[in-house]
């Protein structure tokens, strides 16, 4: 009798575990997803064994990962590679000349009309570091870390409008509805932190990117995988703060009461979902404590603030870089930064290469360099993959909106070749891959697509991008759609 009882007991607990995950993983066939959920939902409670067991190691990755986490710095609006990293003296020689027909045939532009003029490089370039990478004078700090970086100089994309291009970059498809990269990664790997979501989003520049919040949405994956936005004003995470006048202790007591009554409900009703709810309330409480702590950068020493150039008490890209480091330090899997304001058309001073662009470089140059140095001095750079780039690049021609010469200087959207870079997380140091022609217009060699970037990011995390799939509406979907190959050349 004893044995029978034990057997049923054990079976029940095994099935309860299965059942709890059922809602989320109805159609997930890979072991990966199961593991992911386990760790996302695990909450260090007495129910841990019920909700989260089974070998983290078994399915955590397809092969040994080089990186544990990712910090993705997306410059929304798309910065001009020709004023930052692509040194093209020939282009400057052609400055002011009409653009040759051959460059315009069959091309689609967002704003350029008729025959535009070539636009020489607006800033001086010099070689930096041992690797001798060219960097513009607007990025003195980045110049100091080029020996940590692999440049991808011939990235191309299919989309020449912001929203679809951002979507392609972040979700693998230009159309809405697919999960973002961070969602895929947390779905595959879970979070290492039990008190924080595995995928966090930091936005600066005053606006959400053109594609809206769906670029950190979970698409058809369950919403547990969607990016959680940290905010610089109001609650650090939506709904995190207790109501006014409500102490932390009182919140603790209310959650205790809720869980006590729910526990009783469980004993009556027997639904394992109640146990999940109990642990989620516990995690909510722990998030209330840990998230503000992590997001309170005031406690960082002065030299760190100086290094990043933070503005205390305000939201800024520099603050977000520092936050990103703090988050990966705590085991957050995927930290996505968006900085808005890089769309340098020249239609207004704020979006001109000889205007707002200088300011954007100034705002981001020092914090990005600081982030790399800071990660390195903490020994975190080896296990943190840092990615930098926009959704496309900018034309070597000067934009002539309406067929007229504009008051300020700017470049139009360019999809054929632009620069991105990666550092840390098993990426070669002081390296460069790909090359464009002497005008920076077409790729000459080492051309890589957005899907290749995604494949490479997943690869560094130990995931085979072809195998991380989710069954939805009759077929398996993956981040890289049907494409993508790992850029082996930049991997150690």
């Amino acid at each position: 009798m004893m044995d029978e009882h034990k057997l049923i007991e054990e079976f029940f607990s095994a099935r309860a575990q299965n059942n709890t995950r059922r809602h989320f993983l109805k159609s997930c066939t890979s072991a990966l997803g199961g593991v992911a959920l386990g760790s996302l939902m695990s909450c260090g409670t007495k129910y841990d064994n019920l909700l989260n067991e089974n070998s983290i190691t078994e399915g955590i990755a397809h092969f040994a990962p080089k990186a544990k986490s990712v910090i993705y710095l997306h410059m929304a609006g798309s910065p001009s590679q020709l004023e930052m990293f692509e040194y093209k003296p020939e282009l400057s020689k052609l400055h002011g000349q009409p653009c040759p027909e051959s460059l315009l045939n069959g091309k689609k532009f967002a704003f350029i009309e008729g025959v535009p003029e070539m636009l020489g490089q607006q800033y001086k370039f010099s070689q930096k570091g041992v690797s001798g990478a060219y960097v513009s004078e607007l990025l003195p700090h980045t110049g100091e870390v080029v020996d940590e970086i692999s440049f991808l100089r011939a990235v191309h994309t299919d989309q020449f409008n912001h929203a679809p291009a951002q979507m392609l970059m972040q979700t693998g498809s230009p159309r809405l509805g697919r999960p973002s990269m961070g969602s895929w990664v947390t779905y595959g790997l879970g979070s290492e932190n039990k008190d924080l979501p595995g995928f966090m989003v930091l936005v600066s520049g005053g606006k959400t990117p053109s594609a809206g919040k769906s670029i950190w949405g979970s698409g058809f994956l369950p919403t547990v995988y969607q990016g959680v936005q940290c905010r610089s004003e109001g609650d650090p995470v939506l709904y995190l703060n207790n109501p006014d006048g409500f102490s932390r202790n009182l919140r603790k007591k209310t959650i205790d009461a809720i869980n006590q009554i729910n526990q009783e409900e469980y004993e009556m009703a027997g639904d394992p979902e109640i146990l999940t709810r109990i642990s989620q309330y516990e995690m909510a409480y722990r998030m209330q404590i840990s998230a503000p702590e992590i997001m309170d950068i005031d406690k960082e020493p002065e030299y760190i603030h100086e290094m990043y150039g933070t503005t205390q008490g305000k939201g800024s890209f520099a603050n977000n870089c520092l936050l990103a480091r703090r988050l990966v330090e705590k085991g957050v899997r995927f930290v996505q930064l968006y900085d808005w304001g890089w769309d340098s058309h020249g239609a207004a001073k704020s979006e001109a290469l000889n205007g707002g662009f200088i300011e954007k470089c100034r705002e981001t140059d020092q914090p990005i360099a600081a982030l790399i140095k800071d990660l390195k001095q903490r020994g975190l750079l080896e296990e943190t993959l840092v990615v930098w780039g926009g959704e496309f690049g900018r034309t070597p021609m000067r934009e002539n909106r309406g067929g007229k010469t504009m008051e300020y200087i700017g470049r139009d959207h360019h999809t054929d070749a632009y620069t991105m870079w990666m550092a840390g997380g098993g990426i070669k140091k002081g390296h460069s891959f790909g090359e464009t022609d002497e005008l920076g217009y077409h790729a000459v060699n080492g051309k890589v697509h957005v899907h290749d970037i995604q494949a490479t990011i997943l690869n560094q995390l130990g995931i085979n991008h072809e195998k991380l799939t989710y069954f939805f509406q009759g077929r398996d979907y993956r981040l890289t759609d049907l494409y993508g190959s790992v850029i082996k050349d930049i991997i150690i």
Partner: protein
Amino acid sequence: MVNKKLIIIFKILYDYTMKSNLYLLAFILLTYISACNDPKISYNNEVKPILTTKCLSCHGGVKKNGGISFLSADEAIKTAKSGKQAIIPGNARDSELIKRISHNNQELRMPYQKPPLSAEEIETLKTWINQGADFEDHWAFSPPAENPVLNYHSNPEKFSIDFFIDRKLSQAGLTTSDKASPQTIARRAALDIIGIPAPEYILTKFLKEPTTENYQEYLNKLLELPEYGEKWTSMWLDLARYADTQGYEKDPHRDIWSYRDYVIKSFNDDKPYNQFIIEQLAGDLLSEPTDEALIATAFHRNTMTNTEGGTDDEEFRVVAVIDRVNTTYEAILGITMSCVQCHDHPYDPIIQKNYYQSYALFNTQQDADLDNDFPLFSHYPLNKRDSIRRLVELYSGIKIEEKSSILNQVVSQALFPLLKPGFARESYGTNLLSNNAAGNFENNAKIDFGNFSFQGQNSVTISYNLDEYVDCTLFIDEQAESSFSLGSNNLKFEKTKTIRLNKPLTGKHHVTLEIHPENSWKWWQKGTINTLLFEPVMHEREYIFELNRELSKVDKVTVPVLKEQTEDIKRVTQIFEKGNWTAKGEAVEPDIPNIFRKNNSITNRLEFAQWVANPNNPLTARVYVNRIWEQIFGQGLTTTLSDFGAMGEKPSHPELLDWLAIQFVSKWNWSTKELIRHIMLSSTYQQSSKVSKEKQAADPSNKWLSRGPRVRLSAEQTHDQLLAVSELLSLKKYGPSVMPAQPDNIWSVVYSGAQWKESEGADRYRRSLYTYWRRTSPYPSMVTFDSPSREYCVSQRVRTNTPLQALVMLNDTLSIEAAQSLAAKTLKKHPDTNIELQITDMYHKAIGNSPNQEIIKVLTELYDISMKEFKNGNSNSQDFIFIGNSNGHDLHFASLSVVANTILNLDAFIMKN
């Protein structure tokens, strides 16, 4: 004995749970069971699963390696590239398929480089081929039919939902659960029918005397409440991807809430589902469309419009058309047509050409991704239509049929000889404004006023506000009557111009005005043409100006609608090679997919809609019945709501699904209310949701329904319930979407100055389906509770259980406001200081049951802790309390609010059980 057997089954289950996956186990058991019972191999139940999982990915619709596909009989028995025949019906031994799956050579053995088929699987295939290799139709592609074994007609009384459920339960060795308490059933049914707890006056009688009759009456009363339509509309809005914005980048506002109101009204009127479908797919093509039917076509105008600079309108028009095809099939027909965009369906016998035959139906409408969402239908809001009708009848004496066609045309006739563009029959290249004037002219703008009976009028006076000159031509019966120029340099003053007609008009004539601005006017130029007045005014029609004045008090609204292109410019549809819209292939005509084509062939959208809504359509009723079932029980009889194809989950109760579909169509005349009523009257529905460990083990997902549903409330139900139990809820119906409290800085959309401006008064507390839905930045608490962002059709919400949901329920302003309001209402009702009584009252109000002693104890202790907290200043009641008149110093009220906040976070509150 029984125990022993159970133990053995448990042992096996247990072993498999730990070692392997359950699907394998289930498969083995199924195979075992079916082999024992029926020597005839069933293609659908036994063979198709093998082919689908093991063969079709290389030999299916997409890849036909070696020239062989097992998708249909035709393809499977033909001679392959090798010259051999994969399947020779009746002859397994010589069939290449059998040779290859049992081949010794690894290079030749199939599936190639994958694990071999099991001996049982090979045996199944052999037997099936020997029995003649009968490729039956996929179950969901044949209409639900009379079951030959059960014979529904012979004894209709015998059959009910419970009959089918009980039958499966006994097969699974399970028993039903006890009936849930009347309180639980009452709450469950109210949440399912109206989405909020039942009003007291309906509830009391049933709870006092919970008899079957009273339960029936309780359900009927709930079904008659207008809140019923609001609850069920939420489900449909996900399918229709309804939102208040255009979707891309700047994500500008779109007026389309009339469509939402149409859906609410349709549910409340219990409009037959077939009519509901026809109106939405092709209401504009009906011979006498009503306003409702035109507004219904906005179903497919919920596709997104791209207004980003530099985008190719044609590209995004194509995207919208593709979305219309995919949504139609997913939402209404439950098949994954989107697979067929680029290639033949990998698992279902649908070829790529079929996709574009459906595409052709949605490719010939006038909309073209224009920023202004043209074409629009300008109309009176649905809830104002009755008063407008009465007004027209009162003044004009014209009797208006209840179901009379388009109200605009009725009003237009009543006002004649005063013509207003807003009541025109058709208009092109101009926007009709809420005051019925026309503005924003493009070149060749045209207003077709329709036909009118003239009685000797010989001049027309046109009034306008214009600050530029435009050339106009007045047409009478398609003949240019007069060309003239209108304009002034002051927008503010209304001017008039009188034109003499060539001769006095008598009898019926058709009036059209064409407008030719020099440049298409920009939207910020507000110039309008207001009225045309034919004179002399007949003596007996003096009412016209009074009627006009009354009508002017009601603003009209617009909604984007479907409208066919004229025959001469209709787009031709070509197949997109590999789904690439720029690689156009063979031209195709509209039609339905091959597998559904019998002798019928369809040529336009209306015929298509009628095919979809035909009683013989194998999918429509099944898919809908299954959706309703899922809303009520938390999972469908077929769990994949949007995939009834080969890759979809097979129904747990196929006979029940078919029986319900048949009843729904033939007996209940497509009535949703009848369907819901029948489901809720079943004993199955009324079971307690409590589950023993044994039952949980034997049926963890409650697939066999041996207990009642226990499901987390939807985003809408959660939000609405908070408002309802705290008596904050406004029951105001219809109208433009509202903006309840939302945390600051949520809307920060590029190139957009749009602001979240919190609604005032009762509009802060409307039901959540009225909440303004911006696709790029949807209402955050609802998204946290798994609301989709409505960019595309979503047929099934995933129900998650996350810490972020806990934070919403604990801390969102709305949650706190509801807690304080609940406490305040209780204090008002029980002003004495009996804490237990007050706590009991709040709990009862929120959850519909009385709390037991243990719960009261926990909550009373929490109350005491709160009192202490507020007294010693750790928590500050003055800061905490923000409703009512400075009740912040009332520590008792504050502490009770803390308890209320706790109650509103209980599992019992968040769940339907």
